[in-house]
């Protein structure tokens, strides 16, 4: 893998493909797809260990959520070790992580969210409303509709709830910044 512009582009593309597969859950990114698209002249038996090495490096960087100091130290170590990477490859990886770090981290956070999330929130305030089952007139009332669901699944029907003026003070949240 000579150090020229074309091989930098190919490695960049490879890292993108690996990230799509490993973090962003994009289906269908096979070894053969990556090889034929990015490294067509490289035979499969040579490509496979190369791909595994790059995948391992990217996963290590993402798993440790490396800052730029850690990244430089890590990549330098990779260039020095037996069967490691070339320094121009290290440069491509460094550039890739710096520009994709936030997005990858976001995907990793999403992967660790197993409970339902809040997909939507809409509300309105009614001045006066009357139920056909009850003679009571509720005034005033906030009607909130929450769409709750797990990622990748169709939401169940939304939770529609109402709360009148005093109840809203249950959720009286403290002042000051949250994180």
């Amino acid at each position, binding site marked *: 893998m000579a150090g020229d512009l074309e091989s930098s582009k190919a490695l960049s593309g490879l890292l993108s493909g690996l990230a799509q597969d490993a973090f962003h859950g994009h289906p269908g990114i096979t070894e053969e797809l990556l090889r034929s698209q990015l490294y067509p002249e490289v035979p499969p038996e040579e490509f496979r260990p190369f791909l595994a090495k790059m995948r391992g490096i990217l996963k290590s960087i993402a798993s440790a959520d490396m800052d730029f100091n850690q990244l430089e130290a890590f990549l330098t170590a990779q260039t020095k070790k037996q069967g490691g990477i070339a320094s121009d490859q290290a440069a491509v990886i460094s550039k890739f992580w710096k520009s994709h770090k936030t997005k990858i981290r976001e995907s990793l*956070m999403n992967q660790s*969210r197993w409970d339902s999330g809040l997909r939507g929130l809409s509300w309105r305030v009614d001045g006066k409303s009357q139920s056909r089952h009850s003679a009571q007139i509720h005034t005033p009332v906030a009607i909130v509709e929450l769409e709750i669901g797990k990622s990748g699944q169709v939401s169940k029907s939304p939770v529609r*709830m109402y709360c009148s003026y005093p109840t809203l003070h*249950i*959720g009286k*949240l403290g002042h000051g910044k949250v994180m």
Partner: protein
Amino acid sequence: MEGSSEPLLDAKSKLLDFQWKLGMAVSSDSCRSLKYPYVAVMLKVADDSGQVKKKSFEMTIPQFQNFYRQFKEIAAVIETV
């Protein structure tokens, strides 16, 4: 998702209780250094028949800030009605 079209009051549940928890996911199998703060919410609602149900969900901090902002707005509006 804009406002719903004319839901009857009967079709809604009454909010009884709102519990929250601020958590920090430290590590996971896919990411050793996760450091992910989140807010988990547990709502208790009672439908028209009086049946009490619990609904729970999780929010990222930006989502929670938006959630909080919306409820602040609701509280402000409801005071003026």
